[in-house]
């Protein structure tokens, strides 16, 4: 995302569509994006929905939490955890980084930066 390039925002869903301290999956063209509302920390995150470990479309159904204040999501399949800040896999050095999307809330809608 270059500084000069204008960010394209995709209106993903209403804030109430996302459960408190949980996640949902949205479809944007051919992409699946997981959106998380870390309600207790008043934070929103968006990542790819694909868990790179076994290539499963699943991360939005994962438990979110934190370790040493770093927000993370745990894949439901094998409990690998990924940083919601950097996308790095926190539980294994063998698993790839996941993509993090920029996210913003405007007028009670969730927007994800898609380009």
């Amino acid at each position, binding site marked *: 995302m270059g500084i000069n390039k204008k960010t394209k925002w995709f209106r*993903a*869903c209403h804030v109430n*569509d*996302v*459960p*408190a*301290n*949980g996640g*949902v*999956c*949205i*479809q944007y063209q051919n992409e*699946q994006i997981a*959106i998380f509302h*870390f309600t*207790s*920390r008043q934070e929103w995150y968006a990542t790819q929905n694909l868990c790179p470990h*076994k*290539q*499963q*479309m*699943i991360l939005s*159904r*994962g*438990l*979110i*939490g*934190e*370790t*040493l*204040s770093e927000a*993370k999501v*745990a894949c*439901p*399949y094998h*409990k690998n*955890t990924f940083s919601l800040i950097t996308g790095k896999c926190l*539980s294994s*050095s*063998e698993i790839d980084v996941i993509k993090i999307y920029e996210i913003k809330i405007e007028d009670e809608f969730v927007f994800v930066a898609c380009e």
Partner: protein
Amino acid sequence: MKSNRFSPSSIKVVVIGNAMVGHKFCEKLRERDVLNTIDIKVFGEENHRAYDRVHLSEYFKDKSIDRLYLSKTGWYESKNIQIYLDNPVVEIDRFKKNVISKSGEVCPYDYLVLATGSSPFLPPITGNDLFGVFVYRTVDDLEMILGRAYKSKKAAVIGGGLLGLEAAKAMLDLRLETHVIEHSPRLMPRQLDETGATFLRNKLEHLGIKIHLNKTTSAIRGNERVEWVEFADNTQLDTDMVVVSAGIRPRDELARQCGLRTGPRGGVIVNEYLQTSDPFIYAIGECALYEGMIYGLVAPGYNMAEVVASNLTGGDKIFTAFDMSTKLKLIGVDVASFGDPFGMNTAHSPIIFEDRMRDIYKRINISEDGKKLLGGILVGDTHSYNMLLQTCLNELSLPPHPENILFQSEEGSKNESGVMALPDAALICSCESISKKTICDAVIAQGIADAEGMKKCTKAGTGCGGCIPMVKDLINETLKLQGKMIKQIICEHFAYSRQQLYDLIKINGIKTFEAALESFGTGFGCEICKPVIASILASAWNDLIIKHATIQDTNDRYLANIQKGGSYSVVPRIPGGEITPDKLIAIGEIAKKYNLYCKITGGQRIDLFGAMIHQLPEIWEELIAAGFESGHAYGKAVRTVKSCVGSTWCRYGLHDSVGFAIELEERYKGLRAPHKIKMAVSGCVRECAEAQSKDVGVIATEKGWNLFICGNGGAKPQHAVLFASDIDKETVVHYIDRLLMFYIKTAEPLTRTSTWLNKLEGGLDYLKDVIIHNTLGICVQLEQEMQETLSQYYCEWKAVVESPQLRKQFTHFVNSNEPDPTISFEEKRKQKNPVAWV
């Protein structure tokens, strides 16, 4: 000899060979070369980068080498190591100090490391080049074996040693009629004595492998392809293929060619620094000959890699004779051999234990003064291996009755303190050479508190994994010593044990995760504490778990079992396994309508697979309409009560086991606990319901019922133990009420009843005191709490089906009604199945 001390400016290191040891050397060298100044080049002969040969047979499982690779894609590039694959070195020029590869690459070196390994020895007998003769060494060998296996019915493995039996297992897995041919009078002659080998042979023969001992193969015969093998005693054996595993020969041809000293039977001669006769050339792994010995195991090879990496970076490690003890699981049979297994080197007295009922053989060799353990052999049960090995290697003094150490493992919890008696230098992980001190230090200085953390921090347990139980014990014992009393805190957010949290939640009437966090926790929670609290809330209040959806583990979040690919499976409750034809038809029709894969479960129910997330409420709506309820197959909860047909039909049955099973299942259905709970009721001592493998097992007797508790199958099967005999039904229910409630209140997360009992101080006697003799005076309270929880039961799926709000949660996309387009199925045996994952 060691005159060529390394100079700090950039040096060039060339490694010949990219198998396990060659790879480990690259890892170790780069690790020590912190400034990244050494120029490393690696030449490999195979087309694959280094992979795990120890677990080569895994390749047959999915024919993918990916999980065998020792490094991630791009590892060599990221470590700035140049790697040449499928490009072996063909010549070493020691005078110009360079190597020339097959493709003509000329590479100068300051130091050269030979890690050329070994090749399987093919005995010079007639027919060893026939089509259908294979060796068992590389992925390419396995590919060729696979290609032939499809067209074969019989396979003969020549060689009954470690590798030969590994190959035989692979042949058996390929469903071939498998023969093992060994020329000596017993299997694994290097590791086992006569009796140990006989026990192993019996076990293998039970599995269907045919063993031929004292057979020297004299020829392999056939017309164009293998048809039979001939033996020196003029007998023969028909076979379609032959796998030769008759030992290894060091790959020393390059070394010979350039004039390095080699042994009379092969191997590059090295000194304690692993230098060859040319001080600028080292040899490691199976090509190196140290003090007349080739070390054909991975642990000493890794140790050699470490020694050379140390020497090239200013260290001064030396290689000393390495312990060749081994422990392995052969075709489901545990075998171990350590120290001096035969007691050949010293006068000794062996202690031998034979259990022909369970096919267990143990032998330990004790020094004549009775003080030291010299070595031994274990077949069938290797639980005590780690402790025996450490006692032997560290020359620990034996207790007055050394025979007792053979049974330590069976005593359960009492053996844990043993690990702390080891000296600091005791090698715990021999693959990565990690000492006890390194592990304990990591706990003390870096706060490592579990085996996973230890793997990351020290690499201990990342090799063969055999040391992990011992690593865990060391972590726990060190924590205990630190005063961190295995206080078993849940995670960084809750500094309490599950038992303490349970009491706190109950006493303070806590009903949500947020309230628990606010009252007794810090921070914002994680994937560990959320499901634990969820489970406690469910056990304490039996509130609808889907109201707390975002703190539930996956399966509980969607009240279904997630399967490969992202679809779910559905299990309706069938109490006691009894079902009417109408209900069977209903299940069949629903399965047909939604195209669900059907399978009968071990718990006498029917599992329906392949449901998309949005279909779950519709499917359940139909199941509920047909009279079914949730089976809680997705929960850490009471699952099923299995039963035999009992006295109603069976001529041997003493009481109505089906009726009692249904009563029990209806009573405890949905009860949430630290882990799943399975039960069974058998109508007589023939035990067709397998009640003695359950958490709660009830078996009819002439006078009433016997109650068995705390058994399980799974990864670590354990028989249930007899808790009370000849009691009536009411007493059975009283005891189960108390027992389960006591377990729910006191067990750590994800602990089955068996492990809970094993760890319970005072063990079974204590449990009987609490539950039967009421020594704590809590029996009435336990029963009341159980009654309260059970009275709150209702079918979770009924609640979802009836609530449009809850139903809304069951979609894949929140912004579209489409199902997940990436889910796909394939047909297998006339049903749909998920596509295998990568």
